[in-house]
């Protein structure tokens, strides 16, 4: 299903993000999970992401330093 919608590179990233998020790709919620892990990019354009970070007190420098990946308290 996913291979119909994504390039190889994006499919690899999709799988990596699934693993990182500890979301079971086989679960009925897999489609949602895909949307969710991509949510930061999907919800709005890049300027919204920067504005959002700024609204919550992070400077553009701070924001630029943040890697485009997710971690979780469970894995910390």
């Amino acid at each position, binding site marked *: 299903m996913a291979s119909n919608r994504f390039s190889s590179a994006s499919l690899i990233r999709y799988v990596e993000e699934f693993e990182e998020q500890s979301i079971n790709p086989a679960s009925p919620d897999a489609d949602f999970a895909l949307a969710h892990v991509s949510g930061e990019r999907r919800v709005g354009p890049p300027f919204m*992401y920067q504005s959002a970070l700024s609204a919550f007190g992070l400077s553009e420098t701070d924001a630029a330093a943040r890697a485009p990946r997710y*971690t979780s308290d469970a894995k910390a």
Partner: protein
Amino acid sequence: MKEAAASVKKQAFSSPPLAAQCVRLSGSRALGDTIASIVAQRQPEEVTLLVFDFDKTLTNGHASPTSSLEQRVRGGTHTIEALRETLATPGILRKVLTARPPTKSSVESVALQLNGSMQLGEFFATEASAEECAPFEYGSCGAMIAHAADVYASGYDKPSGISALVLDTCTVAAARANTKVEERACPPIRVHFFDDSVSNAYRVSSETVLATGAVPGMVGALPPQWDVQLTVYWWDLYV
């Protein structure tokens, strides 16, 4: 009251967005600490609405019933203890607002997880008829929302989800108050919304509007005149 709320839900929403305070949370104890602080500081007459995103905010993502508490619930024991403290105060309401699609299956899936693998069922009501779980149109811009008791799904249109939650809270709170219909007014409502997605949190902080029309059966009931305060917490996943 259900009919009254339904009529309001169809109105155009032209009022300015609610002014919101934005707060960034960080660290695994942040949610529990913040809930405890809210409980300690709340006023007796207010309705305190605690609204949690589900995946990666209330939970750590996928978990099985054999997963440890820390693996299931973000913040683990500390979060659970804070949630349990809220049960003792009737004026504190706990809701889930997920970005999953606004469908009956979405809210049923979250309800199943709350009561099953996440073991959080004691904090959220989830029983609802199939009719109640059916998606409804909210506002005049095509926003769709589905909910099963305390579980709401609005897709990524979370501002509409918060708006609907406030409306439901106002109408139910007014109806439950032991007053005559002509004396019913909306109590002060303090909304605290938690999300792990900064974009979702930002949108709620900047785009949440209330219905503009009167709610039948309530006095002074133009929603823009209600005493509603919104605080949005982004619980940062980066550590």
